């Protein structure tokens, strides 16, 4: 009975491997052609893999969270009549490292809940007879040691095959718990620990951030901007063009200032390939707009900001943010920025130390706007102030250059009319 092994397709330029983040089919399920089989995530994007043919799923390539090399078998589909009992493609056929692909404990039978309500809090699990406790898989030695240490093995995540709890798992759990025990006295009864595997986007962010802090020589520079005039202008424009043009937030103005300032300081609009020790200076200004989404932080790119006016930027920024949030952003819209702006809106805080979006060399953080007393003409007057907290890669940008660059932006923002004139 013929079985076709659907290989992991090439999901993006130069992507070597992808991580399975979601199965859309189950073993033994009959699928139509083009029906979505699974979703895989690369550095760039989450890509859905359609089925090349109709048939019955007889093999699943790997567990959730496993990284498959492009070209390795993803799904086995049999397209004869009696597609009998499905099995899992034997682990050690796949080229990926076996210990890398742990068996996901969730696949075991669901915990039978003997009450008609959703499983309850931790103390419910402790009650005898409340739930048929999923029996932890552990050797007698581990069970004995756990009992000595007063550890309930049901709370320990087993990293061994079939979720078996290895000696290391126990040690990690106990060490983890001993750190927590310092504050344990406060949360005495709330010692529920829920292990969540780091997979998908979360893992992507973790790796990028770690890489950035390891390689980039960060320094941050915080400057105060008097945006009273800017805010008035923004509100006038919005009032004037309400309905006909996109609503302007502060970001388009910052982008506009950025585009102009970069002309004087091109090194800031660059990317640094530190492997080959080459700085790429870009004439185009592709601005990464850091956007918070449910799965995590994403940075869609406003391409050629230099060629867009305020309203162009505003519209594109809005579109990109929405696409990122509902997961429809295309891979190419999520990479290629030359400089990034990050803003937490009214959560912006007084000052932040943003992490440079490698391989870029600069990132501009927009802090909260607030009324502050400012000494002008011999007395304190209320002015609407906003800080810019920017971080630079000191390997490429020196403090002095960075300060000049930020002061240029300050001048532009404090005289917003300049932004409208094509100076």
């Amino acid at each position: 009975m013929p079985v076709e092994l659907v290989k992991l397709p090439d999901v993006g330029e130069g992507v070597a491997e992808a991580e399975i983040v979601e199965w859309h089919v189950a073993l033994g399920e009959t699928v139509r052609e083009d029906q979505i089989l699974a979703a895989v995530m690369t550095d760039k994007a989450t890509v859905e893999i359609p089925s090349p043919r109709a048939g019955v799923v007889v093999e699943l390539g790997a567990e959730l969270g496993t990284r498959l090399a492009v070209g390795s078998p993803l799904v086995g589909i049999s397209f004869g009549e009696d597609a009998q009992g499905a099995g899992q493609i034997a682990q050690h056929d796949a080229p990926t490292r076996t210990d890398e692909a742990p068996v996901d404990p969730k696949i075991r039978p669901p915990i039978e809940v003997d009450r008609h309500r959703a499983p309850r809090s931790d103390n419910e699990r402790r009650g005898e007879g409340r739930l048929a406790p999923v029996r932890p898989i552990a050797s007698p030695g581990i069970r004995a040691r756990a009992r000595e240490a007063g550890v309930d093995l049901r709370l320990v995540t087993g990293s061994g095959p079939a979720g078996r709890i290895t000696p290391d798992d126990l040690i990690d759990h106990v060490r983890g718990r001993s750190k927590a025990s310092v504050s344990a006295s406060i949360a005495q009864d709330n010692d529920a620990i829920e292990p969540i595997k780091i997979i998908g986007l979360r893992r992507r962010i973790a790796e990028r951030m770690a890489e950035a802090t390891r390689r980039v020589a960060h320094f941050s520079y915080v400057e105060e901007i008097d945006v009273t005039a800017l805010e008035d202008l923004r509100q006038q424009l919005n009032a004037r063009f309400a309905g006909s043009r996109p609503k302007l937030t502060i970001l388009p103005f910052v982008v506009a200032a950025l585009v102009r300032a970069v002309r004087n300081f091109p090194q800031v609009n660059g990317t640094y390939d530190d492997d080959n020790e080459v700085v790429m200076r870009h004439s185009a200004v592709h601005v990464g707009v850091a956007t918070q989404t449910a799965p995590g932080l994403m940075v869609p790119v406003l391409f050629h900001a230099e060629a867009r006016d305020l309203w162009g930027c505003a519209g594109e920024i809005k579109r990109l943010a929405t696409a990122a949030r509902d997961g429809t952003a295309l891979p190419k819209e999520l990479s290629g920025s030359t400089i990034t702006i990050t803003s937490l809106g009214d959560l912006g805080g007084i000052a932040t130390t943003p992490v440079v979006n490698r391989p870029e060399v600069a990132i501009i953080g927009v802090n909260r706007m607030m009324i502050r007393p400012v000494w002008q003409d011999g007395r304190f007057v209320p002015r609407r102030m906003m800080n810019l907290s920017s971080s630079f890669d000191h390997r490429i940008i020196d403090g002095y250059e960075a300060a000049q660059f930020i002061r240029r932006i300050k001048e532009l923002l404090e005289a917003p009319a300049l932004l409208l004139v094509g100076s």
Partner: protein
Amino acid sequence: MPSLTMIEAVRDAMDVMMARDDRVVAFGQDVGRFGGVFRCTDGLQRKYGASRCFDTPISESGIVGIAVGMGAYGLRPVAEIQFADYMYPAYDQIVSEAARLRFRSAGEFSAPIVVRMPCGGGIFGAQTHSQSPEALFTHVAGLKTVIPSNPHDAKGLLIAAIEDDDPVVFLEPKRIYNGPFDGYHDRPVVPWSKNTLSETPEGYYTVPIGEAIVRKEGTEVSVLAYGTMVHVAEAACRSVGIDAEIIDLRSLVPLDLDTIVRSVTKTGRCLIVHEATRTSGFGAELSALVQERCFYHLETPIVRVTGWDTPYPHAQEWDYFPGPGRVGRALMRLMEA
């Protein structure tokens, strides 16, 4: 099957037993010739003679004292304390003597007596005709304490109590003597004849001591109640539309804990209702037992609706009496948590 009031059921029980067993005697203030202030022994003296059903001097310790002596002799005395509120002079004879006699004589002597006392409020009896002193008896090892909520159980339980070899305190909620009272005091009284639970088989039968009964099946909350409160709880559940499981305990000691645990394990919520004052009331004991046995099944803390910790008032009867309103609100609170 005849429909009796609770009074007729109690009288019928004594009648049946006095006929079956010539050791059974009934006495107390106004019990003989007059037939009891609530008419519970009406006609017994005429039928069985003055030496088997007779009046006594107004001396509660005397009434229970002679009962203990008669019990030790081998009789089966049914002593009546006219109102539970007057039981205190007899408390020493009940607790130090009747309850302890078998234990202290290692079985040589025992006091197979029944002490009947009308209890509970709802009749503007104020503090001397409305008390519910069950907790003072449930705390005593050696005593059994039972309290029926309807004529059928009243007759069966009283016969069982008379046959029981241990001393039994038999509490009769006076407000439901003539009809089930659900706490809506402004509505016309419903006679027992209109309630199926008044159907009482003729002749001898028993309701076993130590067995509760699920008055109404339910899934959302378990309501533990006894006496008049069973009817109040039913009315409250209907009014707030909560599918409660109502358990009529009937017997406080020995207590049918299995039925309670089964129910609370199912519903995960527990409401306890009794007329007696709250502090150290029997509800506290029920609450302790439920949390000991069903802690991991409880969704919310156990709630008690009881009389306030004040002497029983007169004019403020219906502010004191735990009515369907208070019980209903407690049910709602339970369901929201």
